[in-house]
């Protein structure tokens, strides 16, 4: 939701980043305020997943120019864990499997680490168990999810649900969902979207990184940004996603000057 005079959570200015000497992000400007849901769309290779990883602090990318403020802090100075503790969350496109660690053990460790950092009370295994089971209902997850190793042998849908469960537990200020819709059938997509919708509120914000419009039927964005070759080339409302769906990304290439001029 767009709220008048709401506070700025994320402000990105002229962000450039490269990997192994190849520049991927070529000057990104983006402002996200509390309560808002932004969608970043674009073809494969447009740099949208890179933007997500750079914001989360992935060390493979080198930031070469620009500034990022997160809740008034210089985000680029912080290691990934401090970004997470400050309230930034990245739902991975390909969540990592960790055989040997029970999901509940991992979730509690992450939860307590972040809680401790925020000066809040940590939960013991029993307390945490009650708490996490409540959150799991949001995502229609079976209880055996907790005892299995982290993401090991999970289906694509289960992995994505596990990501959103972590989002629900960590209560971030800003969630970045990187291709959370990829590999989901329609039922799983609805469950995941429903979970996200119940977590978003006027005090937090969400960035959805996606290739397809489909997810945006279920999580309705306030802003849609289109990325191409490392830049945001167009910004509009939710109707821009529908436009893209019918006309395709080629239409952007032909019209970006003009349409960008209209929305700017």
């Amino acid at each position, binding site marked *: 939701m767009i709220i008048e005079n709401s506070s700025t959570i994320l402000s990105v200015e002229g962000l450039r980043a490269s990997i192994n000497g190849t520049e991927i992000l070529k000057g990104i400007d983006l402002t996200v305020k509390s309560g808002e849901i932004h969608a970043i769309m674009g073809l494969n290779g447009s740099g949208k997943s890179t933007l997500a990883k750079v914001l989360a602090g992935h060390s493979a990318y080198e930031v070469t120019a620009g500034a990022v403020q997160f809740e008034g802090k210089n985000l680029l100075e912080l290691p990934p*864990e401090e970004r997470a503790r400050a309230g930034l969350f990245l739902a991975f496109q390909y969540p*990592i499997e*960790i055989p040997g660690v029970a999901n509940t053990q991992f979730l509690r460790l992450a939860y307590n680490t972040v809680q401790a950092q925020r000066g809040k009370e940590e939960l013991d295994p029993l307390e945490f168990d009650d708490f996490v089971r409540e959150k799991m209902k949001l995502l229609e997850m079976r209880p055996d999810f907790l005892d299995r*190793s982290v993401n090991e042998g999970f289906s694509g849908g289960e992995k994505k649900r596990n990501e959103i469960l972590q989002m629900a537990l960590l209560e971030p200020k800003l969630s970045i969902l990187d291709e959370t819709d990829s590999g989901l059938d329609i039922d799983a997509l609805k469950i995941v979207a429903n979970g996200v919708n119940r977590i978003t509120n006027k005090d937090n914000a969400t960035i959805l990184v996606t290739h397809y419009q489909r997810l945006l039927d279920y999580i309705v964005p306030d802003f849609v940004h289109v990325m191409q070759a490392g830049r945001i080339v167009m910004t509009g409302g939710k109707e821009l996603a529908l436009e893209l769906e019918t006309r395709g990304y080629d239409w952007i290439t032909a019209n970006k000057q003009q349409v960008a001029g209209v929305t700017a």
Partner: protein
Amino acid sequence: MSEVTGTGYLECLLESWRAKPAEALSWLDQLRAQAIDRVSTQKLPTKRDEEWRFTDISPLTTLPYRPSQPDANLRIQDIQHLFLDEVKSRLVFVDGYYSPQLSVIVNPALVMGNLPALLSTHATALESHLGQYARFDQNVFTAMSTAFLRDAAVIIAPKNTVITDPIHVLFIATQHEVTSYPRCLVIGETGSQITLIEDYVALQQAAYVTNAVTEISLAGNARAQHIRIQRESSQAFHFANCVAALAHASHYQSVSIAQGSKISRYNLDVRLTDEAAECMIDGLTLISDRQLADTHTCIDHSKPNGTSHQQHKCIADDTAHAVFNGKIIVRPHAQHTNSSQSSRNLLLSKTAQVDTKPQLEIFADDVKCAHGATVGQLDAEEIFYLRSRGLSEKSARNLLTYAFGAEIINRIPVTSLRQQLAQAVLDQTQSN
């Protein structure tokens, strides 16, 4: 004896053997005599031997390491910290010698105890199994163990006896600069079921040699869970040979953890001698500093419809060196064998080393055999994933290292032991 070769270590041990008094039983004396004969015709292996090419045991020859002597001074409070909650029956050997006052035998359904005490009552069973699986013609360590055979943990599970509580066989090292000969014989009769914990520990950081031999015989439909923990002193030498012979539809599960010793070598031979036998063979090597741990396994399928699943993992830190050689033989008649092997290795430092070698020898045509080996460092994406959830880089690394080992440790069916070992992994990884 004219063929005695080279090393002072063997000569010295042979000298002490001559001083041993003869026992009354002729078959046992014969066995020892055959073994001593074999010791005298073999040499200590060197890196020139294919089976030992990664493992240099020459430091063994720098000290005499005479045979250990019986020492009855150990009290129960000295070793209480090694006891496990789930265990009711325990056999304790100190420097290879049986300690009746530290042992507890409560289960009347089982035959268990020290070899000399069972020689008269169970002569037939002992004669037909002892020394019959661990061959000593090609293995100088087994030959020495058999030559010095005196005390041994003997466990016989009678027909259709199901024992749920685990049996703890504790081999405790207390003496400096000695060689001890821990020995185990497990006979699982038809339809029996037992869990054995074979545990090698040291009470102090001393240099000594352990030369252990374990023989396990499972009759038709018998089941055994065999947990082996090697947590010797970090200055010790540990050489061990274990042979498990599996009869029709028997089931053998082995989890072995190698954590201690300066230089260790564990040979595990599993022989599926009859149809439909099954084994699960898992191992974890967890070493650091300048430790060397070498595991050689051989799973030999000789009859149809056998199953073997093996996973071996090594975690090596500092300048440690881990070796895994996993041979799987599927003989011509062993059709419909289902076998898998995985060797996964984690290097925690740039100077740590792992040598892993899967070795498949398949002579049957209708079989399913899968194998794979990986050597790597902690994955940067995995570390990033955990850091993005708020964990520090250090705790992310610790958790991933722990997880790597925990996958094997979690297969140990004894909760308190599992917790002890998980803690040991945590303690070791915390130092990074």
